[in-house]
Each structure stands twice: as C-alpha cells, then as structure tokens.
C-alpha cells in the first residue's frame, strides 16, 4: 500500500494502459461512429497536451504544431505502406504481433522525424520571442505543407493528392495508450524539480538564467518532445483514416490545436485534456454546419482571449507543507 502510494504516478499509467487494452478488446461492441469520435478525441488529446508543453508550460508560442503532425503522419504512413510488407514477411506473415511491430516501427519513425523537425524549429526559436516566434513557427508549418504538396504525384507521398491505402492499425489501445503515455510524460516531467524549469523559462528568462537554468536547453527539449508526440499523433491519425493529404496539416489544423490549449488553460494538463475532448465533440456537432464551424471557433478564440485568457480550468497551486518535523 505504501509502495503503491509512493509510485502512484506509474500506477496510474499502468492502469490507463490496462484500461485501454481491455476497452480495445471489447471495441467491436462500440458503435463504429462513436468509436471513431473517441479515437479522434484521443489523438487530439495527444496533440493538445504536447503543444501545451511548448506553448503553455514553456511559454514558447508555437503556431506550427500541425506541421509536426504532418511529418509524423507522412513518414509513418510511408513506412507501413512501403516497408510494411517486408517487415510482415520477416515476421512470418500477417498476425497481430507482426502488425503491431510494423506499427510501432512506423510510429517511431514518424515521431523521430517530427522530433528532428522540432529541433530545427526550436533552434531558431532561441533567438526569437513572442509574436515573432509565433509567425516563424507558422512559416515552418506552411513550408512543411508546401514541401509535401510539391512532391511528385507518382512518388510515395503523392503530392497534392496525398497518400491513401494506409493500413488501419490505430485501435483504441494504441491511441489511448499513447495518449496516456503523453500525459504521463508531460505531467510527471513538469511536476519535478527538473520540470519546473519549463515554467521558470516561461515566466522570466533572465531570472531563469540567473538561477542557473539553461534556458536554451529547456526550450529545445520542449520543442523536440512536443514535436515527437505530435508526430506520433500524426502517425495514429494516418493509420486511423487510411488517407492523408497536405491540406489536413496546414495552419487551420494548428489553430484547431491552439484553441484546445487556450480553452483548457495554458499550462493546465487536465484542462487541456478536457478541452480536447469537448472540442472534438463540438466539431462533430458542427460537421453538418461546416460553413459555420470556423466562424464559431474564431469567435470562441476571441471571446476566450478577452474574457478568460487563463483558460476554463486554470492551473492550481500544489500545496506544499514540510513533511518531517
């Protein structure tokens, strides 16, 4: 019992993984449409929580998260489409195991490629602040989109038409397992002495440096880790819908993720998770009124900024009291 209390964070993670596995096994009983919305919500949770690490906790306002998602989606899809058959062959034909291994490899490749892009964006970010950084990350997002858009239409990425026929590996287990890991990583990192550095960097860079905090390192870590999870989310997305195209990873998608972070409260992991679920549902409701969707979202953005910029669920302070004595 003592042990469980001491390692409760890890226990929660295991529990979450277990639950996702069990639900996944029973997912045939869930209505297909509902299941799909749940999976989209899970992917959005990953996107929002990872963007929150960069924007909320570290205070480096990035407008390009969808770009990293796109890199992950394209790269992982390329792996499972182009190399999938040979991996399956090596593992003795299609089976749950060989599909799983292929998927893990694909996701990791996507995540790592996105992380490299995150590094490439993070490094210039060291010299930029605030709104300029935001515009530059938006620029990177557009550049990534333009690059995919201009690939050869007969090549693996399919140019403007994108890719299709990606195997549907994204099950409940994978989506929510990775979402749980993402939440665990961000939350446990931020809730440690090491991780308070992200918040310090956000609040005051000069003071952080004077406290011995290597602000450069923290910013790069935030960008790389945030991009890695966005890449995983992209991989899950590609293997959920089976088809992707460059437009899906443009500026508007980045704005979608930003709205989740802002609504949930910058720096509040719980808030952002709730917002991701809420907005995914709202998005579904508005599917029949596509014309109004962006109008509603843009009004939401403006009103939030004016009325409640700290988000619906602002960060609370952890109670600290001396343990011994």
């Amino acid at each position: 019992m003592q042990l469980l209390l001491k390692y409760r964070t890890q226990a929660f993670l295991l529990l979450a993984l277990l639950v996702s596995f069990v639900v996944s096994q029973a997912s045939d009983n869930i209505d297909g449409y509902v299941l799909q919305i749940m999976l989209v919500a899970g992917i959005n949770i990953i996107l929002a929580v990872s963007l929150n690490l960069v924007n909320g906790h570290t205070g480096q306002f990035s407008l390009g998260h969808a770009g990293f998602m796109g890199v992950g989606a394209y790269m992982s899809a390329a792996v499972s489409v182009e190399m999938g058959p040979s991996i399956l062959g090596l593992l003795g034909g299609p089976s749950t195991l060989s599909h799983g291994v292929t998927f893990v490899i694909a996701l990791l490749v996507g995540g790592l490629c996105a992380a490299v892009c995150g590094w490439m964006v993070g490094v210039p970010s060291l010299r930029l602040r605030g709104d300029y950084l935001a515009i530059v990350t938006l620029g990177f997002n557009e550049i990534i989109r333009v690059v995919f858009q201009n690939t050869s239409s007969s090549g693996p990425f399919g140019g403007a038409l994108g890719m299709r026929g990606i195997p549907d590996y994204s099950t409940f287990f994978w989506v929510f397992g990775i979402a749980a890991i993402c939440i665990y990583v961000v939350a446990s990192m931020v809730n440690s002495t090491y991780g308070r550095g992200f918040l310090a960097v956000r609040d005051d860079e000069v003071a952080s440096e004077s406290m011995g905090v290597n602000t450069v390192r923290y910013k790069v870590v935030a960008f790389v880790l945030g991009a890695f999870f966005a890449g995983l989310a992209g991989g899950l997305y590609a293997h959920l819908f089976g088809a992707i195209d460059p437009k899906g990873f443009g500026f508007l998608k980045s704005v979608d993720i930003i709205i989740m972070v802002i609504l949930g409260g910058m720096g509040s992991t719980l808030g952002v998770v709730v917002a991701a679920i809420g907005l995914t549902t709202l998005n579904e409701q508005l599917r029949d009124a596509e014309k109004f969707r962006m109008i509603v979202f843009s009004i939401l953005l403006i009103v939030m900024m004016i009325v409640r910029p700290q988000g619906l669920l602002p960060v609370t302070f952890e109670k600290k009291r001396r343990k011994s004595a």
Partner: protein
Amino acid sequence: MDQFVQQLLNGLFLGAIYALIALGYTMVYGVLRFINFAHGDVFMLGAFGGLYVHKALAPLLNALPWPLALAVVMLASMAICAALGIAIEYFAYRPLRNRPRLNVLITAIGVSLFIEYTGQLVFGATQQPFPAIIPRQNISGLGGLTVTMTQVIVVVVTTALLIGLRYIVMRTRLGLAMRALSLNPTAAALMGVNTSVVISFTFGLGSALAAAGGILYASLYPSVDPFMGIQPGIKAFVAAVLGGIGNIPGAALGGMIIGVVETLVTGYSQKLGIPSGYKEGVAFIILILILLFKPSGLLGKVEREKV
C-alpha cells in the same frame, strides 16, 4: 535584357501594392507593438467593398469619366474599411490593452479567421470577377515594354497615398501624436495625448490604405474571393519586417523589394530550377532569414531588453 526590365517593372507595380498593405502592419506595430494578423483580411474587404460599391452605383458611375468613377469607388471602399478597422480595434483589441502581446496576436488570428469565414458565408466561396473600372489597355510608345493603364494607376495612386500619409504623419497634430505614442506610450499619455483616439486613427488609416491596395490588386488580377488577402497579407507583413517594422519608409521600401523579388523569382523559376509550387513558401523563408540575421530590418533600429 528587355525581359528583365519588364519583370523589374512588373515587380515594382506589385511591390507598390504590398507597400500599401505593409504600411498598415507597420503603423499598428509602431503604436501598439503587435502584429495585426487580420490586416490582410481588411485588404480583402477593401476589394469586395470596391466590387459592391461599383455594383450599387453602376448607373451613376457609368455616366462618369472613369478616373472619377475610380476615385468614388476607392474613397467609398476606403471609408468603409477605415470604419471596419476602427470597429475591429474597438471590439476585439481594445479590451486587451495592457495584456500580453501574445494574447492580442491570438485574438487577431481569431479576427482574421472570423472575417475570412464570414466572408465566405456572405460573399460565397468562389472567385468573382472584378469590374474593369480602369480601362484594360496598354500604354504605347515605351519601346519593347508593356505597361497597362492599371499599372500606371497603381503607381499614381500609391505615390499620392504615400505623400498624403507622409503629410499626415509629419505635419498634423494626430500624426505627431502617433509618433509620440510609438516612441514612448507612457510619456505620450502623460503629455496629454489621447491614446485611444490615436490608436483608432491609426487603425482607420492603415485599413484605408489596405482597402486602396485591395482595389488596385483586384484591378491588376481581376478577381476577388474571401481568402485573397492571405498571401498578399503575408508578403506585406514580410515586407514590413524587412523594412524594419514600425518604420514607415521602411515598409514602402520593403514592399517594393518583396514585389520585385517575387516577380523575378516567379519569372525565372524555371531557369533556376525551382518548382513554381514553392512560391507560397518563399515569403516565409525570406521572413525567417531576416528574423534570424537582421531582426531590426533594413531601416529599423535595434531594441534591447534592459535588465
């Protein structure tokens, strides 16, 4: 050689329009230190304003000689957009005065999306032709060069507006107040400058210039759609940063440079081996390079944080 001169000229005409838009970014940045992300959309509204004013007043305008008709359409649309710009500032940005600049940027993104998608609802998503208010004819007698009447008008109008703007900023009380505000907002307020009025005025002025740019652009590339402001908006923003954001002559210079570079790159892209599809990324690449290597721009001055 002739072809090069021709491209250069075309670039200058386009650049003149970018300069008009860039001025709005730079003036707002000068007084409020924030990037008005929705400025490109005001440019779009200016073009639509021109279209609808022309439609509404068609019988009257057809009776007038075309330069007069153009002046009526342009002034009407500029007035409408000035009012819209002031309204946007009043409803969306003013409540955020003294909040972190990023919050204002986020709001501005919201405003931008709101204008675009409301525009889509109201105007329709498809492109619409823009009327030929300026006769579509070539000016002859320039050797091998082709210059259209529209291009001449672009230069004339831009020059006139720039001179007018310079007069307002340098010679009027409001212009003086604008400059004071951009140098030191606190001191300006203490010296009795009515900050709110000056800010409204700046938004109105910038939006009017964007509207003029919108009509000229729509005359040059004769069609309009609700998303037409995005690309020119980004390019004009890059122009403002290139010139040194907050610096008015810088914005004009930056606009010209971006216009020329874009036209030359497009014109020679095949020779350079760049797929033309990369065009949309070029502005951002230039922006990133400026911000990394000369963030103060060509004419701007360095701002250092005091500790």
